């Protein structure tokens, strides 16, 4: 059994519910004990860091301070939480003035942070600690014949991810360890527009269209991603792309934990497959 402190992030409990739900049975099946960080708060995300750095730093640091008490690595399944917590953690280490002020703020809530937490992405834990071989050895329903486009998005691999920032391969290896075929495609680490989908939908829809087009042309039957923002953009907004660009995509977009879960024989209900907007039941039927 491997132990981690677990930070779900806000979206895993709302718009990314299928992620939040599917993480748990998959972790259990892989002997990962994710101990949820007691009373965690929002990481501040990119918006807070674009409004006020010190307040954003203090908000993120409350989580780091709580995690430090557990002595465990802090693992999040959300790529944006991962980037934000990592970046604040680095600034706290490198900028003494920032560290001092953030700790002064934390003291008002009876907390302190010494910089001792390692922030990690769940996908990295799956790849590095559990390994594709380890996962493969537990597969009961090999996904033979399923063509999957592994979509890394941005913040899993940039600016300081664990994989190649231009041409990553870890998700492809995870997909292959399930018996599925990871189709090669060019845009696997290009941007989906992230939160611009709300304030600037036209810009984001254009980027999403490019991604879906490329994945479809390369023969993918579905996409798989670890990132809540990417999944929502590609899944929930796919119908908007279809009406804007006169396309007819019907590409399910799974969270990586959902796809792993299917191959491990975990029931569809526990993986929240019915909560995906573009239904994956058709392409997954042979494996369920």
């Amino acid at each position: 059994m491997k132990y981690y402190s677990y930070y779900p992030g806000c979206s895993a409990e709302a718009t990314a519910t299928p992620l939040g739900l599917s993480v748990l049975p998959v972790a259990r099946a892989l002997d990962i004990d994710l101990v949820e960080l007691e009373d965690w708060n929002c990481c501040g995300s990119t918006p807070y860091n674009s409004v006020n750095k010190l307040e954003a730093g203090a908000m993120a640091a409350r989580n780091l301070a709580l995690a430090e008490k557990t002595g465990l690595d802090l693992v999040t399944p959300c790529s944006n939480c991962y980037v934000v917590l990592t970046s604040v953690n680095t600034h706290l280490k490198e900028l003494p003035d920032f560290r001092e002020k953030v700790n002064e703020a934390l003291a008002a809530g009876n907390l302190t942070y010494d910089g001792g937490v390692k922030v990690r992405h769940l996908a990295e834990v799956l790849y590095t600690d559990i390994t594709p071989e380890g996962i493969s050895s537990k597969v009961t329903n090999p996904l033979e014949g399923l063509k999957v486009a592994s979509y890394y998005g941005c913040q899993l691999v940039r600016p300081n991810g664990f994989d190649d920032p231009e041409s990553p391969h870890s998700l492809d290896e995870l997909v292959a360890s399930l018996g599925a075929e990871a189709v090669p495609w060019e845009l696997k680490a290009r941007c989906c527009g992230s939160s611009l989908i709300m304030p600037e939908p036209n810009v984001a829809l254009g980027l999403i269209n490019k991604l879906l087009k490329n994945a479809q042309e390369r023969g993918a039957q579905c996409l798989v991603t670890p990132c809540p923002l990417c999944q929502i953009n590609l899944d929930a907004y796919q119908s908007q792309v279809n009406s804007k660009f006169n396309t007819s995509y019907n590409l399910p977009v799974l969270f990586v934990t959902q796809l792993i879960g299917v191959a491990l024989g975990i029931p569809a209900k526990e993986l929240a497959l019915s909560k995906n907007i573009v239904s994956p039941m058709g392409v997954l039927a042979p494996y369920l």
Partner: protein
Amino acid sequence: MAETMVEAPAVKTSFVDEVCSVPGGEAIRSCIQCGMCTGSCPTANNWDYQPRRVIAMVRAGFREELLSSNSMWFCASCYTCTVRCPRDIKPADIMHALEVLAVRSGLSTKQSRTPVMYQCFVDSARGNGRVYELGMMIKLFLKTNPFAAIKLAPVGLGLFLHGRLPLRPTRIKGMKELKAIMDKAKKLGGAK
């Protein structure tokens, strides 16, 4: 020669120093204007001034023009520029620093809805300790263009019907402590 020395006039912080002082903005002086950031940027077509030019304008002191532009608000934080920049400038962090300065100096553009969205997000995160996505979306559309919401309503409805848009916010237990931390951070102020 000491007698010929005059006292330096009170130095106003230059724009480039201001940007440097925001965490992540430190390296801007070593830009060689190669244009890799602009060439890599997935949204650059929409910017009033594109990334390379943004860096040049910071160094040339075009404070008001830049802080009131829509440029940095189109940054999607994809960090492609950051991993490709040959001088380790971290252009994405500079865009975030410019957003901070635009907000602080009240110059944020009205041409983009992103500044309003970011503020709605911050209010939501501070209010409950967790972001309440539905509340934030509604607030954003009410504050900007309620009619734009009609177009996106099917997306919201789809998420709701799939159990992905809870109607009530989650609140953390330690709200009192978080508030104390955030109030103190606000008091300590500044970008650092």
